[in-house]
């Protein structure tokens, strides 16, 4: 079964690199998100779309 599953695959080191990358990426992102960012920063960032233009209402320009 194992032999069948791995037929044509002789690059096991590639799998290990992939697994390592996978763990490093998620550990880093999780640590960064949960520990390195303050609530104030998150609040400000999340409001960026709301602060990004002068009005959130459609304009009602005058007709010529």
């Amino acid at each position, binding site marked *: 079964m194992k032999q069948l599953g791995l*037929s044509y695959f002789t690059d096991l080191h590639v799998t290990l690199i992939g697994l390592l990358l996978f763990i490093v*990426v998620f550990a880093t*992102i999780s640590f960064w998100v949960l520990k390195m960012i303050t609530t104030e*920063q998150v609040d400000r960032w999340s409001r960026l*779309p*709301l602060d990004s233009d002068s009005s959130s209402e459609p304009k009602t320009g005058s007709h010529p």
Partner: protein
Amino acid sequence: MTQSHSLAEVYDDKIVRSFVLATLFWGLIAFIVGLLAALQLAYWPFNFNLEWLTYGRIRPLHTNAAIFAFAGNAIFAGIYYSTQRLLKTRMFSDLLSSLHFWGWQILIVSAAVTLLLGFSMGKEYAELEWPLDIFITLIWVIFAVNFFGTLSRRKEKHMYVAIWFYIATIITVAVLHIVNSIEIPVSTFKSYPVWSGIQDALVQWWYGHNAVAFFLTTPFLGLMYYFIPKAADRPVYSYRLSIIHFWALVFLYIWAGPHHLLYTALPDWAQTLGMIFSLMLWAPSWGGMINGLLTLRGAWHKVRTEPILKFLVTAVTFYGMSTFEGPLLSIKSVSALAHYTDWIIAHVHGGTLGWNGFLTFGMIYYLVPRLWNTQLHSKKLAEWHFWIGLLGIIIYYISMWAAGITQGLMWRAVDDKGKLVYPDFIETVTRIVPLYWVRALGGALFIAGFLLMIYNIWKTLRKAPQTRKEEIVPQQVPLKTQTHPETSHRKLEGLVTVFTVLVVLAVLAGSIIEIYPTLSLHNYIDPLKRTQPYSPLEIAGRDVYISEGCYVCHSQMIRKLPEDVLRFGPASTIEESFYDHPFQWGSKRTGPDLARVGGKYPALWHYRHMMNPRDLIPQSIMPNYPWLEQKKVDFYVLRKKFSVLKRLGVPYDENTVANADKIAEEQAKTIAAELKNGGAPAGLEDKEIVALIAYLQALGKKGGTP
């Protein structure tokens, strides 16, 4: 006329308006062509016996128009609008914006013309020939320079999460397009990909799946993270979750391509890899969906009265449904039932109509009044659009689910003696034709809703003032002079280059690990011992097969499943398609698999079948191909084709390359004589029908079976 501001910087909304109008125009074209394709499957005379309008050419036009013309223009409209406001600066270059817009429209028109004329690479969603592939690259680079230039002059240090999704889109689409489109030209509109067989299959579905991921998902997620907070007037539910959503999605998506090739000749390890990563995608996808929906906390009452929110919320719900169904379909046992059936078509349209379509509609209803300084003509019409469109999608979705599951179950039905209950493939087709009519009804309703939108927008624009007040960029302290005490925390999201490099690494990690081992397959296989390459006439016929889009309805891949082997013969092997530039495994069986059709019928049968399939199979829904007995084969170009194929590694000797035309003419005379003896017209020896018959008769006859 636009009112200019001599001192203050204003946003470039002219480009956004252009992309919005282009979205509406191309959306209508894409949907109508889709409806025609749906009707052609329900009632074959809708092919009109015209080569430019046959299903094999219409279907690639529909998919390309829906993805790159409709969704593409929508993405660009949303990105240009939100990027300027999130970064508090005008786009980097008006000239580049304009070149991007007009270049993309020229590309769409060129794609439509060439696809209808039969110029095709034969690879789904990547059908365009090499000159257009180069043109796509050029336009994409212009877009990228304009976008990253805007990032470099931004006045807001933090790149909001929507911008992250846009960066991932630009980088990854570039990588996917370039790698999948490496090809060697033969003539102005003919080329062969450097990849072949299993390599081509893996690269193509790595591209195909991630075209969905990075053209139809990540940019739309960016738009979701911008437009839902704007429409609901509330910040995103959890910004922390959006960060995890982004990185998880970007890292995982790229691995999932092999789930399109389950039970095929692809090595099992790659299939399992694709399945597992597809299942893992459940987590980030649903994290994103929940984040989008919960943004409406405390504002759900607005959904009742605001059509914009109705569209956006329903779009996110469809995103949730599609990203639940996708991993489900990637489970090998589910794929065994669903693959090659209309269940996949249902899944795809749930995503494109529900997720991409409704998000685009919500975005346009939001943008138009703001871009044209007026108010929407009729909220009530928008409500009608929503309900009619939603009904259309539901009818479409359910009919194709029913058709797919019905056909999948019929294909695998085996009696107590181990024989197929429905051995004639046509039985499984006629059973679902009524559902094709129902699907066409669903599509027609979706278009009816869209026409209401076009009318509504047209009336809105007529009311708009001639003099537009452009929105002024808010005054902001220039980025270089801003001070941030918490800089150590903000390096990642502040440094565009570092961020982009990390995205590239995340994307390349999965890509290399997945594709690299298959590039070395030739070390383990000796194809010379087992497979013979196609003859010159067979190659000419193969090019006709690709040009007519036969791969759209016929697979050439017998899966390692009992029902496939019982119906079509021994399972396909890696060796059999080793020299196929491009591979033609297909993804849908509207007609039967052709991997072993060679020798199954005499040449005359194929001739009569191509002229009028109903002469032989009265219930057939296949179009007629009368032009194939009129159009001549270009024998002389075969030398060039064989020279290219030899350079790509197909083991042709010098004599075959130098005399490809003569060898082909000899074989054609033999087949034409056989046809004439059977009662076919004389003088077919230089016609495309003979080349196509030669190719069909060669399928499964070149060795490579165990």
